[in-house]
């Protein structure tokens, strides 16, 4: 407001400090890819990591992949350990995540317009250059990427290669999700419990540095919980509950609790090849997600253990959460919601898979050291005794999976019980968004710090030293 302009004055032409370039922060996970500019408080582009694959190509993005297309298959470039497996798809997916909402896509005329009409190409040389240009989509933004702490060296180099070579980013850095979770909570020293889709991991962070030996993880993340929900529904009494996803339901009639569903199934046009099973499974997962949001709850009673007495207490009707499935079937769930969460703490509460199902092989009952208390214990036993109290005083809980009601309180109880002589303090943001995007927010903070600029791997350095510089620089 310094300069007053009257309606007669013509403002001066631009003189702005145009040299500040904001870094792009990319936080790829198993269930979604978060992308945005450093310094912002939430990622502006959130894309599911799942993509639709048909004979005509790949489709990325919410809603687009939910359309039942002919013979469509839903895939994910990331495997059950949270590590990238399909680099082709991952690169395309990540590029989509920032190109479509942030940096923009440069239309590749060579592909869209001129492909079948060579005569219309105005200048072949220029067209070729343009076509290449669309590949180099990040030329103006340094790229900050996150990775799980257990990422392999080869994968890290591959990330650098994509960023600096294919996307032509001017600079690059890889940060660990756990560390970023600590930064998001504003703690340089913390024990980060990250509840991801594939893994629940415990990462000790000291002065902003990861203590690699202490990183523990277990396959009890969101996907495990979904698998448990499936087991629960399959074992439901008196009849097993099958999930009919929304896209298969044309309309439903209200039925009373526990009564069989009365719905009209969707009819697809004739000669329509139904989507592949993976599509249905992906749609079922959405129903399960809603189920988890509605029903799951952690047992936070310090006096009564859940198994046994608590289970009976929880059976009371006031704790029941009704859930209606897309086909209209509905039923209250009370003790089940507690038990599902309890199985992350106590392998005995595991819902066994129905016979003949492969859920059991993929998601077995967690071993004692694979439960949440087990992970924390194993992690702390790997770090110096002196810093353990600092870590326990800053237990950061992050990740979408931690949004289960009462989970932070439950962890507080559990850890206080395990370490009665130490003060345990839990840092869990009350804002769902901050926990969902914890590692992205941490990345956004770190990448916008002025002091961070010397950490970047510049393109030049990369060209000089090769990909191995990632191992040296991003520790």
């Amino acid at each position, binding site marked *: 407001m310094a300069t007053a302009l009257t309606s007669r004055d013509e403002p001066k032409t*631009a003189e*702005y400090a145009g040299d500040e370039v904001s870094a792009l922060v990319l936080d790829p996970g198993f269930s979604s890819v978060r992308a945005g500019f450093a310094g912002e408080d939430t990622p502006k582009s959130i894309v599911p990591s799942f993509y639709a694959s048909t004979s005509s190509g790949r489709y990325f993005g919410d*809603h687009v992949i939910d359309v039942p297309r002919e013979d469509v298959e839903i895939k994910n470039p990331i495997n059950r350990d949270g590590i990238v497996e399909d680099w082709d798809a991952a690169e395309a997916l990540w590029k989509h995540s920032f190109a479509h909402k942030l940096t923009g896509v440069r239309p590749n005329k060579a592909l869209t317009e001129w492909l079948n009409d060579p005569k219309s190409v105005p200048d072949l040389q220029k067209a070729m250059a343009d076509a290449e240009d669309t590949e180099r989509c990040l030329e103006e933004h340094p790229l900050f990427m996150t990775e799980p702490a257990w990422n392999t060296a080869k994968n890290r180099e591959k990330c650098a290669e994509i960023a600096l070579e294919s996307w032509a980013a001017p600079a690059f850095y890889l940060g660990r999700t756990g560390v970023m979770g600590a930064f998001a909570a504003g703690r340089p020293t913390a024990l980060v419990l990250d509840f991801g889709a594939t893994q629940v991991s415990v990462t000790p962070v000291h002065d902003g540095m990861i203590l690699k030996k202490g990183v523990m993880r277990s396959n009890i993340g969101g996907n495990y919980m979904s698998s448990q929900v499936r087991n629960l529904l399959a074992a439901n009494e008196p009849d097993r509950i099958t999930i009919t996803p929304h896209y298969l339901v044309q309309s439903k009639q209200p039925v009373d609790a526990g009564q069989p569903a009365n719905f009209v199934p969707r*009819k697809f046009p004739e000669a329509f090849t139904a989507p592949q099973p993976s599509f249905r499974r992906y749609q079922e997962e959405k129903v399960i997600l809603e189920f988890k949001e509605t029903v799951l*709850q952690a047992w936070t009673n310090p006096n009564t253990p859940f198994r046994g007495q608590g289970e009976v207490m929880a059976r009371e009707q006031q704790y029941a959460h009704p859930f209606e499935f897309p086909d209209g079937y509905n039923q209250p769930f009370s003790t089940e919601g507690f038990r599902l969460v309890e199985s992350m703490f106590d392998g005995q509460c595991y819902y066994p898979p129905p016979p003949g199902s492969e859920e059991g092989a993929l998601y077995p009952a967690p071993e004692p050291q694979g439960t949440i208390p087990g992970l924390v214990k194993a992690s702390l036993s790997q770090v110096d005794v002196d810093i353990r109290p600092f870590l326990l005083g800053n237990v950061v809980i992050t990740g979408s999976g931690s949004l289960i009601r009462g989970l932070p309180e439950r962890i507080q109880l559990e850890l206080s019980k395990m370490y009665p002589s130490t003060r345990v303090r839990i840092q869990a943001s009350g804002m769902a968004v901050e926990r969902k995007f914890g590692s992205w927010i941490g990345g956004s903070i770190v990448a916008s710090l002025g002091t961070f600029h010397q950490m970047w791997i510049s393109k030049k350095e990369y060209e000089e030293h090769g990909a191995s510089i990632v191992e040296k620089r991003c520790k």
Partner: protein
Amino acid sequence: MPPFKDEHVLIIAPGSQITAAQLGLPESFTPPRYRFPTRMFPGTKPDEWEPVKIRPKPTPLPGPAEPTSSGEPGDTDQPNGQATNGDLPSSEQANGHPVPSEDVEMKEAPAGEETTAATNPASEAPPKDTPQQEASQQDVPPDAPPDADDETTETFEDDLWSTEGAVYPIREGRIENWSCFFALLSHIYNMMSPPFHMPVLFVAQPCWTSRDHERITQFVFETWKVPAFCLMDAALTACYAYGVPTALVVDVGHGKCDVTAVTDFQVNDIGRGIAIPDCGGHAMTKRLQQVLESDAFTEDMAEQLKRSPICEILPTGVEVPQGISNDAAPNPAAAASTGALDSGINAKDVDGLRPGQAPRGPGIGTMVGEEGLNGNEEENDGVLDVAAIVARDNAAELLARREKEKAEKAAAKKGAAADGLKIVRLRNSERERASFTYVDFLPIEEPATTDGEQKGRKRKREIEVGVERFMAGTPLPGVGEGVIDTIAEAIHHAVLSVPDIALRSTLWENLIILGNGSRIRGFTPSLLSVLHTRYVLSPSTATIFTSELPSNFTTPVATPGTNTPIPGQGGHTLHHPGPHGVNPLLVAATKNMMQPNQHLPVPGQPGSVLDPGIHHIHRGFSQTPNSIKMVKAPDYFPEWKDPSVHGMEEAGFLGAQVAAKVVFIVDQGNSKGFLTRSEYNELGPTGIHDCAI
């Protein structure tokens, strides 16, 4: 900085087809004063653009100074090195003299050759008298262009009619051709001839990238030298229009649809349906054309069919007369009650009349005339023709109304005219789906393209279509669901992605459907019915007695005997043991549900006082939706209740005016709602991201 004045605010809302613009905020907010077709024509040089098509004269002279491209030299400080043709062809300046009182730079209007052709429709532009104006337009254009041709002595002439070669810079919301887009903006700017101290509010498409925002910011500041600029998301403007902070905004456009959950005036980026392809009006046109392919339907015919009142999307559960559509739900009850009758009619339909309709020559029902029945013609020309655009937007309703008027007139005067008869039937078809007359007549205009002359443009013929006209929302081949299904799915997904679970039921109860794509008959009811039948939770004993009943709600008392205690479910609650159907009391009770609250006690936890009498505990974590409601349109804008406006499809623009008033006039930048010139000089284009909105 002196405060901004209402009359200086410039609002621009770009869309794939129409870019709405307005200078100044009126006392009571109106529909957009100008509607520009979002298209430009390539000029004589690359990266030069003209608002009308120019074409070389058949006998070319080496004329160096053709009026169409000889405007002032283009601005050289265009961003990104794109030499945007900011200047307008002089003839266009004359054309676009939409409101004579405004100071269009008169020096730019030496060539008045097209003035007769274009100013007439344009100057009649105020949208509210669209119907009359549309009728009166008919007299003007056909003879005007030849005059223009005669007077033009240059190598190039303007072709006011052709849209051939037009470049639409925005496709599915995305800006695909920047130089063209900027040329369009310059064109609009020049039409407005705004003052310097002019704050600008831009309605941003949701799919625009941060980079796009920066480019536009740079363009606006550096080319127009404005003092303040605000870029507001289209979904937010809808919320401003309806005056609700939390709403689910469904914006159905031309090539795409945006589904946005807005919570407390914040756009939710998670799960947002951004530019969902093949969900707009164009997809429905394409579908109509496809199902009518055997009848040799062109896209234009399909488009006009879509806008006509006989085209309709039927809600789920309503069978199309023939019962072959996949869109209509096979609701057994509906089928049972109406099916027999329908099939009888259909049999006749299929066997008798339908086949005969296909090879209909132009002769049948053709009229060459000035009769103001159809104004769609005017859309096809490139002239700045506000009236036609208005007409286009309201075409469906206008046609419907005109049909009715005509029917009344016909009935009164002619009486016996077959025309009148048909129209009476048509009105029946509007009202009663069950007793459809399968023969419907649709006036279709067919521009004579053979010789490029403007004769015979007014030819009309009537084309009958069968039940295909109900199939605009049915799935395209290779896709399992139609437009309505996809949008419904997207709505559900957008709500479920909102992290704050407690807000979800509020979202479901604040649904806003807007966008000109939703003008097709039956669109909104059909979408609502799909949402209802597919997503609304049924009231059942499980939901009623365990979830959301507010504690101050008195438990309904049923007749003794139906009160059977259920073991393990708490003794004294009401339970309806019937296997099917739901206790009407439950239905009544669930309708009265209120906002759940967040607190849920945990069993046996010390301190949680559990009153054994209270069995109904509020939760913030229960499933949604229990009900779906549309937001009631604000009724304090009389201009929006004008019959020619017809609904709130363009409420986004109303919201933009409200927002401009709030941001520029009321708030004056205290909450950083806009980027000022001095901030821009400091921060550059990226400064736009710091603005609150």
